[in-house]
């Protein structure tokens, strides 16, 4: 396993000295996870492998943009993988978006006083949170992240009223907020 700090060290080693050994270590940890994540959304193994490869090359290119005080390595790599998935969908007929722009928007401005919320041990908290969600809430959240569906599409697919899906999302996000705010307390 790779801790959040170790992963951040590896990205910084790429940024400061183009460290290929650091890249290889990141690749071994994250490329199989990105591939699994993309396959969850319905892509075949070959396409998912290509996206994983492209996502990790983007990690190399953009390593200097990474800021460990603002996002954990896992969060940052997730956003890159998500953008690569959108690129794939673009080729299959979805309206394209500029994926690099999304990367920028995920970076808070330097004057944001509330940074580092997501750094460090947030994963532990979020994982605890996921364990605490109801099955109904978890299904909706997983469909959103893995299958790249809007809440409207999720409601249609589950044959649920839109209001039900909205309230499940809001309850789950309320718990997310509680879990992460706890972390900021001394």
């Amino acid at each position, binding site marked *: 396993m790779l801790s959040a700090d170790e992963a951040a060290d590896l990205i910084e080693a790429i940024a400061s000295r183009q460290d290929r050994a650091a890249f290889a270590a990141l690749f071994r940890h994250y490329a199989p996870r990105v591939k699994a994540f993309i396959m969850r959304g319905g892509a075949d193994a070959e396409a998912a492998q290509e996206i994983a490869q492209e996502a990790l090359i983007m990690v190399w290119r953009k390593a200097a943009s990474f800021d460990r005080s603002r996002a954990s390595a896992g969060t940052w790599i997730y*956003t890159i993988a998500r953008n690569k998935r959108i690129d794939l969908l673009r080729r299959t007929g979805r309206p394209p978006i500029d994926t690099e722009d999304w990367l920028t928007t995920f970076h808070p401005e330097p004057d944001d006083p509330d940074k580092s919320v997501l750094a460090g041990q947030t994963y532990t908290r979020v994982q605890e949170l996921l364990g605490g969600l109801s099955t109904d809430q978890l299904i909706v959240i997983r469909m959103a992240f893995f299958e790249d569906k809007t809440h409207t599409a999720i409601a249609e697919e589950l044959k649920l009223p839109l209001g039900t899906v909205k309230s499940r999302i809001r309850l789950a996000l309320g718990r997310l907020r509680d879990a992460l705010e706890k972390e900021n307390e001394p």
Partner: protein
Amino acid sequence: MSRHPAPEELLLDYASGALAEGPALAVALHVALDPAARRLVERLGALGGALMETEGDAALDPAVLERTLARLGDVPVEPRPAPYVPRPGFEWAPPPLARYLRPNLRWRRVLGGFEEMRLSTHDAAHQISLLRLMPGRGLPVHRHAGTEHTVVLQGGYTDSTGNFGVGDFTMGPDSEHEPIADPGDPCIALIVLEKPIVLTGPIGRWMNPLVGRGWL
């Protein structure tokens, strides 16, 4: 915290990458201007990251790493991007809008007393415009045939549903409304329309054929 935040389920759609380009741009601008929305989107990023980490891994051919390493020689590690500096005349434009502001973009007067900049995107299902209203001026009474996303980027406006300032986000379909720009700086807003809006006032009805031709 803005007085009119985007609904949380829409922020989830945005964070998971499910939105089309037009609505995604509207949410990106709201997120850029509203710290509370930004915090939630960041947390959603952490949630997505945690889901990806815990979902397990798929078998990967070891040769892929070798092939990837071999490609790195052609891929430079880019320097840290410079801080965003808005273009002169576009000081109100948050960073996510910058790439849409083509060099020849100008305010264009539109019948009805407001100005427009039409943004070109790849999103064929939405029409994306910047509107500018001088203080005290209004848009013709209109209702929305499809969903409309609005984000205020400068100044503010008031209609029967309330007062909207910088960063505020609204989403139709809604009842008829007649927004009037507040005193102070001209009101500038991004409008993302799913379908052309239908004007319902006496002048508006006359304008509908123009709307149909994409004037608005």
